[in-house]
């Protein structure tokens, strides 16, 4: 099918649907690097107009990546639920935007009827406020030891990374985070090395802290899925199985995974019986398919939305778009990072995922902590399930900046958001919070602190 428009005497032709999608994408470095971006602002605006006239069902009839070459495309088509799609089946992309904005009901039933490309397409013609307003109506609630994603709640992943995985250094950061009210989504460590023995030490440490202090949260060491599987075979206390995922089979292969491997991993986690059905933790980010040279000419944001089709196959507890980590050749500045964060949160939520966001940047991007404040506040309004909590927003292992324990307190204060209910009750019980969703002045006497020597086997 040909996509074309004539505007003010100029002809614009878009060879196919994926070209149209790429040209219609709000400007970002990744698409420019890949040679997919619009050549001018006018071409971008025209592409958006042409895209608005494309029927949603075109994304089923004209897959952007051929299913015979890509198992993610096959998954998308196999899982497409025609009954759930029915309310919007006759709409174009533009009409779908109007429908989303006009409707005020719960959108959760729609998720199974949407292909990720439909969510990506409509996001491309939505303003930031549209992305916020619609995402806010998509509540995705998941549960392990606490309940994440309820209205009026904001959770955090406590990320206590250390450059050499030193258990005392990690324990010190965990204690700091807990005393600032962080950690209800997960206490999740990026290990410095993926070595089995090392990961096992960290898993045992987290398990002991959580069980000794009866913290209503879950742990994760973000090692490769095969490492987690081997450790589960050895009986290690694995709460959540982590994996980075992408939106094409080839990009996933570059991560050393495929759908079958993820199915096997989830089945193993289920057999441990540590939680319910929400046992997976996935991370994604625009640009990963391009970085793996596995994007098939599909723009970075659409590839990202396709990764959500992979994620939802496994009913994860948490999905995290790591939005500015990959660098300025993918998202150049604060403006691009903010836009991408809102798009990812919107697309993920619309597709039924428990979206969180690692609101972050590297030092070679044109961004700073003020940009993080902006995206943080916008995502708080949009109803993001969780953000990162890192001491001082400075990850000393991964060498990038994200959001801090303080940032989460700020967001909860200005928007009246509370931690997950079970975790909030624990914070009150431990004297960390004052019963009114604020840090308690008496938290310096919190049993957690006085017991720190027992917290990780060290002297405070």
């Amino acid at each position, binding site marked *: 099918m040909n996509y074309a428009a004539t505007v003010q005497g100029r002809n614009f032709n878009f060879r196919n649907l994926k070209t149209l999608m790429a040209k219609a994408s709000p400007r970002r470095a990744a698409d420019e690097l890949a040679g997919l971006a619009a050549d001018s602002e006018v071409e971008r605006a025209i592409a958006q107009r042409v895209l608005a006239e494309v029927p949603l069902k075109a994304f089923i009839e004209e897959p952007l990546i051929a299913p015979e070459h890509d198992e993610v495309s096959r998954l998308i088509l196999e899982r497409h639920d025609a009954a759930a799609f029915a309310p919007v089946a006759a709409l174009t992309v533009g009409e779908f935007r109007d429908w989303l904005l006009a409707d005020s009901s719960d959108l959760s039933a729609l998720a199974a009827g949407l292909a990720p490309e439909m969510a990506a397409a409509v996001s491309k013609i939505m303003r930031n406020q549209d992305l916020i307003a619609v995402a806010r109506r998509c509540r995705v609630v998941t549960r392990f030891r606490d309940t994440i994603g309820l209205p009026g709640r904001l959770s955090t992943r406590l990320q206590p990374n250390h*450059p050499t995985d030193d258990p005392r250094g990690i324990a010190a950061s965990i204690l700091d985070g807990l005393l600032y009210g962080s950690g209800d989504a997960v206490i999740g460590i990026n290990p410095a090395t993926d070595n089995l023995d090392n990961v096992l030490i960290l898993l045992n440490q987290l398990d002991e802290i959580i069980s000794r202090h009866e913290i209503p949260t879950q742990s994760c060491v973000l090692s490769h899925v095969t490492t987690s599987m081997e450790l589960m075979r050895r009986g290690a206390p694995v709460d959540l199985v982590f994996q980075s995922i992408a939106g094409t089979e080839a990009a996933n292969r570059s991560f050393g995974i495929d759908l079958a491997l993820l199915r096997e991993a989830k089945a193993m986690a289920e057999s441990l019986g540590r939680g319910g059905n929400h046992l997976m933790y996935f991370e994604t980010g625009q640009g990963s398919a391009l970085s793996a040279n596995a994007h098939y000419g599909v723009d970075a944001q659409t590839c990202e939305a396709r990764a959500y089709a992979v994620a939802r196959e496994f009913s994860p507890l948490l999905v995290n778009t790591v939005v500015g980590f990959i660098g300025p050749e993918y998202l150049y500045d604060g403006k691009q990072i903010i836009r991408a964060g809102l798009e990812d949160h919107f697309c993920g939520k619309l597709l039924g995922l428990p979206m969180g966001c690692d609101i972050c940047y590297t*030092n070679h991007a044109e961004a700073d902590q003020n940009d993080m404040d902006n995206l943080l506040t916008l995502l708080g309004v949009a109803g993001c399930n969780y953000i990162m909590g*890192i001491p001082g927003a400075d990850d*000393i292992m991964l060498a990038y900046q994200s959001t801090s324990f303080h940032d989460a*307190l700020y967001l909860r204060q200005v928007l009246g958001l509370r931690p997950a209910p079970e975790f909030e009750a624990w914070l009150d019980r431990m004297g960390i919070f004052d019963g009114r969703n604020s840090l308690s002045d008496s938290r310096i006497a919190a049993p957690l602190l006085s017991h720190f020597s027992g917290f990780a086997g060290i002297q405070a």
Partner: protein
Amino acid sequence: MNDPWHPLRRFTQARIAQGRSGCGLPTSALLDFQIAHAAARDAVHQPWSIDRFAKGVEALGLEALSLSTPVASRVHYLQRPDQGRCLDEASRRLLKSRAVEAIDVALIISNGLSSTAVDCHGLALLEAIIDTYQRNSLRLGPICLAANGRVALSDEIGALLNARLAVIIVGERPGLSAADSLGIYLTYAPRIGNTDAERNCISNIRPPDGLSYQAAAAKLAYLTHEALRRGLSGVQLKDDMPKWLLELDDSTPESKSIISTAFLR
């Protein structure tokens, strides 16, 4: 408001126990962060004075050869990593005109993502490397200097110099705690199109807090010897690393990041 668990900072460089002003950071902690970020930004954006560095190389009694990539500015460099991976036409011609005799190692230095790092540590590290290489009687070409290069630039330079091995010293992406860290990447049989899985990396070279020049040079000498002996580099080389070498530095904070396969692009 001071946090009484401040003494735990001896266990980690993380910004713990910062205290608070309401929900926000106390002013001093906020300004400390800004200074660290400013240093990192400057390290990324300051241009590298290649002529001054070349004089330093010549003062060591070595030949310095100044090369260029097609990158026009630091902003261009950040947005187009592909342009940092190749030489411009003039540099290509220059290398073609002089490479006849095969050499063992092509040594390349670029500011990469931190001009601060090469200016702080580049010459001293080079001196330590040359010292170990000369003791091992390796045949070296000129010391190639190229501003705004990426790791894979060493593929083209190594190939044009007819080198068995390409070694590039490059400024690493600055973090808040370290804006002056150097990395070394080693590739056997350098050819355009080599992948990162075919490289070995020594990172966090930044005395006194990171790896010392001598330790980095010793590790490079080991990797060089093994790569030339076995005819490979990358993942397979890492797998065969003797345990004693890895354990050597277990007492130092950077031990786990010293030798890893590179996945930098």
